[in-house]
């Protein structure tokens, strides 16, 4: 018998390459692979019980030098120099401070220039890099995949596991290519792409997959736009979303505090160039989105998959074939107090929230400001602008954006998660309706009884001007001409 020729190496996807490069031990007989974690981000909500577990077992943090913590979920966005009023929020923050000191973890506290939403802070410091593995006890960790990292949210038991071992036992993911080809029209953004993707594949469509966003529309996005897209991968059920690194990625990273420097930079870039999915690599599933056809998007329901173009009407649940989707739509419309057939542009809002780990970076703030500049907000609409980090806040102020927001009648706040999930005092009142640049329109997410419509920063801005759900396209004839 002839010897079997050595097989050609199989072309691999970006996700497979990152996985393979972090394999500490291959699983056997149904046991998971053991995967090394390069960067562990920590915040106050999902960590206290993990540190407690370490303490009880007498275990140290294995790699404090691969771990970083920030305060974001509970932090107030007003009067940050005063003690936190809510005693349970204060306890949680104080617990993180004690744990960080005890275990030697770098922590950026409220008032520190590097404090902010954990998913804004990591990239900003240059810690999030191509080809690394990133975890955090927060499902929006998928954000960091924008750099070609494999990044995903974990539960508190896994936080403890990573603190103790710097690894996680994991079963390999399947891969899905999300191809977005074409050119976005002015007024259409990364947020509209991802809302359209989720509406297409559904909130469960990505379960078990790592999504790789590909195609000319993705390539032409900035890092901030790519982060917006990867951020919401979890809303399609996928734990991780990735974009292959390219010149845009390297330009963003170069010179950042924790990016490689000197000869290390050259070695890193050389490695990063080997990461993109190879010609001939096979994905387990593929989706195609036509960017040319996309319009500004908005959600009408209570999960992020319940979205349509802003020029559409609220759908009629009776027209939905799937019985679960139909029941969910009926329930959603009842909660949202919307009637089938209502034009979304006729829906009046009480509040506009500009912020969250999805859309609180400097480009998001610039986009919002570009629409509202020189205008006044609609009467009776409360507008809140919350930067993603203290540094983003400084950057915005250096550009004079704070003046634009204040002259518009918006509240300019300090950095944090804020009204995305209302753990701090920034909440909707029952029945209030909000156009929000955040990521989840779940029942009660922004405050008990609050009603959320997910939108892009541009739609949020146009809505704040008109008082009804609107895109920059609706401002034509009002002297905008976009």
């Amino acid at each position, binding site marked *: 018998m002839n010897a079997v020729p050595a097989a050609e190496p199989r072309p691999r996807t970006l996700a497979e390459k990152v996985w393979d490069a972090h394999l500490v031990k291959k699983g056997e007989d149904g046991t998971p692979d053991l995967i090394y974690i390069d960067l562990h981000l920590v915040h106050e909500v999902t960590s206290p019980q993990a540190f407690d577990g370490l303490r009880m077992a007498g275990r140290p943090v294995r790699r404090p030098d691969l771990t970083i913590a920030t305060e974001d979920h509970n932090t107030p966005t007003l009067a940050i120099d005063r003690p936190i009023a809510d005693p349970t929020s204060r306890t949680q923050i104080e617990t993180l401070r004690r744990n960080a000191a005890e275990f030697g973890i770098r922590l950026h506290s409220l008032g520190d220039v590097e404090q902010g939403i954990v998913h804004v802070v990591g990239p900003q410091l240059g810690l999030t890099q191509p080809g690394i593995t990133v975890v955090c006890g*927060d*499902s929006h960790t998928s954000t960091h995949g924008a750099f070609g990292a494999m990044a995903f949210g974990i*539960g508190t038991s896994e936080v403890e596991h990573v603190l103790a071992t710097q690894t996680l036992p994991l079963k390999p993911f399947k891969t899905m290519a999300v191809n977005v080809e074409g050119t976005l029209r002015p007024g259409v953004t990364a947020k509209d792409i991802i809302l359209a993707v989720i509406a297409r594949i559904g909130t469960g469509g990505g379960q078990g997959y790592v999504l790789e966003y590909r195609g000319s529309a993705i390539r032409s996005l900035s890092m901030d736009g790519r982060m917006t897209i990867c951020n919401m991968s979890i809303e399609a*059920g996928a734990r991780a979303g990735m974009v292959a690194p390219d010149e845009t990625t390297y330009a963003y990273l170069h010179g950042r*505090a924790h990016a490689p420097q000197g000869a290390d930079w050259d070695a890193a870039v050389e490695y990063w160039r080997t990461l993109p999915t190879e010609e001939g690599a096979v994905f387990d599933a593929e989706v195609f989105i036509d960017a040319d056809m996309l319009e500004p998007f908005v959600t009408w329901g209570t999960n992020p998959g319940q979205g349509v173009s802003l020029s559409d009407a609220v759908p009629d649940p009776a027209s939905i074939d799937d019985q679960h989707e139909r029941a969910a739509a009926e329930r959603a419309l009842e909660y949202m107090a919307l009637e089938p057939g209502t034009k979304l542009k006729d829906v009046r809002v009480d509040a506009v929230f500009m912020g969250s780990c999805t859309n609180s970076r400097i480009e998001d703030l610039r986009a919002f400001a570009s629409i509202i500049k020189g205008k006044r907000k609609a009467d009776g609409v409360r507008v809140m602008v919350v930067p993603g980090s203290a540094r983003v806040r400084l950057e915005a102020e250096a550009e004079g954006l704070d003046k634009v927001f204040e002259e518009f009648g918006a509240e300019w706040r300090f950095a944090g998660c804020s009204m995305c999930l209302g753990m701090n005092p920034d909440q909707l009142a029952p029945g209030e309706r909000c156009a929000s640049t955040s990521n989840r329109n779940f029942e009660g997410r922004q405050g008990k009884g609050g009603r959320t419509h997910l939108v892009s920063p541009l739609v949020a801005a146009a809505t704040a001007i008109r008082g009804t759900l609107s895109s920059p396209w609706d401002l034509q004839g009002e002297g905008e001409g976009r």
Partner: protein
Amino acid sequence: MQKFSTVTGVAVPLRRSNVDTDQIIPAVFLKRVTKTGFEDALFHAWREDAEFILNRPEYRGGRILIAGPDFGTGSSREHAVWALRDYGFDVVISSRFGDIFRGNSGKQGLLAAQVAYEDVERLWEVVEAHPGIPVTVDLVGRTVSAGALTVSFDIDDYTRWRLLEGLDDIGLTLRDEESIAEFESHRASWRPKTLPIREPAESGSL
């Protein structure tokens, strides 16, 4: 973690799909620094409705929750699992689970049993026709039985083994400490580190 084999108890039919973790436990309850005491927070908004299934006396003391598809989607909060455990649930049955929720369940001794949707319907019918009827979930045989009805469920072998043995994940991984140290010895110098702290080129202050 306690060893898990068979649970028999009251099953609660929750006829809702897409039960995200914000519904299981709203964010305002995530501020505690303990792993227990979350029973009152479970389904907090829904429980204000006197007709909500958990408020019905015939389902009091429920140990098995039978839910619609896509249970536990959304946020990674493990508090959702703690709240279900604190309330007294040992098993959640659904035709599909959020990935992070399912992982969290296995680590806290909550069995996330994946049952085909048609079988979930049949279980709902039996339990609703006979509220409080004892339902048995057998992790060894991977079956759920209610009256004359027995259906099978899926769970991955590794999670099942850990639940049956009551094994601690960290202890298991630390058996491979040498492999971890070996991996670390080859980690490239340019891979990111959080310490020592490096200052950005342009400095700023608040």
